[in-house]
Structures are given as structure tokens and as C-alpha cells.
């Protein structure tokens, strides 16, 4: 990729962020047990070992989503990506992983690369994924079989591609929200957050 260059371009940034989402979503699905752990395989990326799904259907789905996402990231029209975990039986939303994306739209005009080395960006991404893994310390146990859904918030005037449909925000009422780390490629900034059902404690 662009690892030999010092700076980062819009295209490279879109690719990096899309890659982060691919790994991030895979990690969440693995950590939260949405898919059985034996359908994942271990890969090394960002100098850490990560789990990637081997389920063919899920794989194609994620590849499609990430490809679409990359396009939107390149056009700077995406605002948010939300991963919603719902109970399979009751359709109740149990967890909501939200990634806010701030695009620097000036990068579309000037093609000059920004000064930020890929290594620093990847370090930042790594700490975000580490934190995603660490959230199991306070997240409630998902006791029932769960499904997941991806929501993407884009600018209004965008056309909805095939196989995508409009949906509501799927907010959890009475939720506990925890901000996670963020990272920036200096063109795209991604803020992460997880929301889960509040505990019934005092």
C-alpha cells in the first residue's frame, strides 16, 4: 500500500478506515459470541492477533458492506456506522456499537497527502481494538441467541444502493453509554462508543 510514503491521501485514509471496520466488526462479533467461536480464524494484523470469520455468507456480506463503506468514505459522505446486537427471539436491542466518522471534506479538493505516518495511525487503531476486546469486563452477558445488524448514516442526498434499506436508529432505552478511544487519519476521525442496557442496580 502506501507504507513507503510518509503522508496519507484520501484514498489511503478511506482504505485504512474501511479496514479498521472490517477488523473491528469481526472482533465484536467474535467477542460477543454472535457467531460460534469455531467459525473464526486467527490472523495477525496491526501487530496483534485478530479473529476473522470463516463463515462464507458472513464473509461476503462483510466484504460487500466494507466495499460500499470505502466508497462512501472516499466521497466523505458517511457520518456513522452502527452495529446493533438484537435478541433473536424478541428483537430487543441489547447492544449498540456506534462509530462516529468525521470527514475532513477539504481533502476532496486538495490531493496533497497529509503528514501522518501509517504506523501512528495503526497504533491508534490497535488501541481502539484492544479496548473493544476489554469491554467484556463490564458488558452484560448475552444470554440469548443474538443477531446483528449494521446501520450506516450517510448524508441525506445519497441514493440507497440495492440490498440496503432505510431503518430507524434502533436506540436502547435506559442505556449505559461508554466512550471508547478514537483514532484519526487526519482525514477521517472515528469516535467509538458502546451502549448497553442499564443494569438493574441502585
Amino acid at each position, binding site marked *: 500500500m502506501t507504507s513507503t510514503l510518509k503522508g496519507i491521501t484520501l484514498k489511503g485514509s478511506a482504505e485504512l478506515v474501511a479496514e479498521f471496520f472490517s477488523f473491528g466488526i469481526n472482533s465484536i462479533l467474535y467477542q460477543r459470541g454472535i457467531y460460534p467461536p469455531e467459525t473464526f480464524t486467527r490472523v495477525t494484523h496491526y501487530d496483534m492477533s485478530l479473529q476473522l470469520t470463516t463463515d462464507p455468507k458472513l464473509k461476503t456480506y462483510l466484504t460487500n458492506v466494507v466495499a460500499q463503506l470505502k466508497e462512501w468514505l472516499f466521497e466523505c459522505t458517511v457520518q456513522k456506522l452502527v452495529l446493533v446486537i438484537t435478541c433473536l*427471539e424478541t428483537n430487543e436491542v441489547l447492544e449498540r456499537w456506534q462509530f462516529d466518522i468525521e470527514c475532513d471534506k477539504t481533502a476532496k479538493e486538495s490531493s496533497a497527502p497529509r503528514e501522518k505516518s501509517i504506523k501512528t495511525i495503526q497504533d491508534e487503531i490497535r488501541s481502539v481494538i*484492544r*479496548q473493544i476486546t*476489554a469491554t*467484556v*469486563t*463490564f*458488558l*452484560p*452477558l448475552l*444470554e*440469548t*441467541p443474538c443477531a446483528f445488524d449494521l446501520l450506516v448514516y450517510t448524508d441525506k442526498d445519497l441514493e440507497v444502493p440495492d440490498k440496503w434499506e432505510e431503518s430507524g436508529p434502533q436506540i436502547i432505552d435506559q442505556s*449505559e*453509554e*461508554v*466512550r471508547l*478511544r*478514537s483514532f484519526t487519519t487526519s482525514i477521517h476521525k472515528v469516535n467509538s462508543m458502546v451502549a*448497553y*442496557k*442499564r*443494569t*438493574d*442496580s*441502585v
Partner: protein
Amino acid sequence: MAEGDVEWELSKENIQPLRRGRAISSLHQALSHEQDAINQQRQAFESELRMYDGDDPLNVWDRYIKWTEQSFPCGGKESNLTTLLERVVTLFKEEKKYHNDPRYVDLCIKFAENCSEPLDIYRYMQAQGIGVTQAGFYIAWAEEYENQGNYLKADRVYQEGLMKFAEPHDKLLQFHKALQARVSRHILTNVDEDDSDDEPKELERVSLASLKHRGKKKAIAPVNRTGSAIKCFTGGLQSQGVPVLGNSSNSQLVIFDESKSEGAGTSELRAQSWMAPPTHRAKENEQKPAKWCDVKMPQKTKFGHTVMPAPPPKPTFQPFVEESDQLPKMTPCKINPAVNTVLSARKPCKEDTPLKRLQEHHRQQEEVESGKTQEQSVYCKELLLSGATEFCFEELRAERYFKKMAQESQKVEGQEA
């Protein structure tokens, strides 16, 4: 919340996961070492326990225990969680109105999970009729069986729950279905493997034999737990106190008999008459306060333990010594064998288990009722000792005083208005 607030991430290994998750605010509070605030809250709960005079005392306990879980993410002794659970379970065991109260059942399940033999507690609960109409009870019980690899009994527990029409019915059905799915997947994946999975999960020793004791000393070596069911505690050594003769040390080896175990399974679910909740066995490193003035140092036996360990064999190579270096003169060194206390075992002391305490409590109550009690405390002993920590009289007095003050100031305000 500031983004830089990564306290929880730094101590993630020390946070025990909770089934219901944790409130991030109390996690922050607990991890930022705000001991004062935590102590204040605990004190408030403790005094509320004592001063409460409404008709739902369980409510205070419930909130107190939930607060404890959230505020002591590392668990541990200072959280007093096990003490609190034990107290609340014993306190309300006679209260019929709480027996199928989801909160009380939940607390009992938590108590069971904190014990080394949860199954005993569940059987006790069933015998007492605690939680028999609650789906949560059957789910916890079945999960315990499942953890020990006993799918058959887990299934039987669910059937029992369905027969008793435990509520919520949907939840029970859903968990039952999930169990069946897991079992069938398990069978499918293990179809080629040998049937060693079906063996009763007992504590296994690495050597398959219990350690012998030698001479008069009854040294209890720790059971080295290797089996997958380390939670199921068989307790001590089976050959304890028995003169060790040849094969008897192999008594831990149990031969599995499938037909026999199935027969045992049916009788397992039958209600038994339990006098008191089963104990949770004494934990390691937890010694009750006891008298020390009469304790004698254990005397050394003539043989066995005074033997010095063999000296390490001399190295086969010549260690390099610098030429200029003069060899230090060897001082004759003789270790007095009497000082060698390595590997002397602690004598097993009489355990003071919660069960014993509870039975004592039972007995005392009966004596009070029959009027032949010899002791009578003329002070409010119950109030002082009812929480997890002991109160002193002054604290109780202060509590009452503040209450009175608050009431009076309210009155004054009412008159002024």
C-alpha cells in the same frame, strides 16, 4: 465521560465480569480509589439494615448486595459479599412470602454460585420450596449441571421446571431449547471421540492416588485439581485416618457405571429433607479467630520429617575461577536438622462452617422457644451484629438521634409554613 478515562481498561484483569454487566459510573468510582465515598455508602446501607422498619426488609438487602457487586469489581474479602449473601439467605429462609420472590431466589442463586458445592444449595432450595416456581432457579441449577458435563440431569431439571409451571415460561423454554441445541452439537462433534466425556466428573489427582501420611502426623496434602469439574468439591482425602494399606490408596478411582448413574439421576431430583442450607466449605487461607495461648508447637517425630533433603549433586564441569581470585576459606557449616521446618504441614483444624453456625442458630432458637435457654442477652445483640460489619452502641444511638433531629426539623418547618 472524558475519553482519556481509561481507568477501567488498565485494570480490566481485576474486574470480575457480572452477568448483568456493570454500571460504568460505579466502576469508575470503585477504580478511582474513592474509598471515603464507598465507605460512606456502605455505612449508610449498614445503618439502613438496622433501622428499617417497613414491611419489605429484603429490599434493603437486595439493594445493598447489588451495590456491593458493583462497587467491589475485584471481589475479594473486603467486599463482604459472601458474608452478606450468607446472612440474607439464612435471615429469610423461614419467610414464606419471600420463597418465590425473584429477588430472594436471585440472592440464593448468587449464594450458591459463591459456594464450592452449588448443587447442594439448589437441592436444599428445592426441598425448602425456595424458587420452585421461578424459571431462574431451574436455569441456574441446570447450568450448574451442564458446567459439570451432566447434560442428562440438566435436562431433567428443565423438565422439572416445566412441570412446576415455573415463570416466566418462555424464558425457561428458550433456555431448555438452547441446552438441547448445545447437547446435540456436542454429540455431533464428539461422535468419533471416545466416551470419556461421559465419565463422572470428579476431582482427579494427577497421580490417581491420594498421598499417604507417615507416622503419627496426619499431613493433608492439597488435592491437586485437574478434572474439568474443579468446582465440584469432594472434600479432603478419602483415606484420611484410615491406615494406609497397599491398594486402599487407590480408593479415589471410580469406575463409571452408566446404568447405575442413571438410576441415581432419578433419585437426585427427589426432595430431601434438609435441616439447614448446606455449607460452603471453608475457603483456603481463611482462619477463624481462635484462642492461641494453649497452642503448642508441633513436636518433631523421630523419623520422616527431620531428614535433610539430599544435597544437590556436584557439577560435572569445573567452574571457571579467576586466577587472581583466592578461594574463600570454607567455614564448616552444618545445618541443625532441628531447625528444618520445610514442608511441615498445617494440622487440619476443626472447621467452623456456615452450616455448623446455622445449626447452632437453629438449636438456640429452639431452646429459646422451649424456654430452657441459659443465656439471654440483655442488649440488642441482633441489631449490633445483623449486617456485614459490627456496629457499636454509639452508632445505633447516633442513628436514632439523627432520625429524631430530622423529624423535629421537619416539624418545625411544617409549623413555620
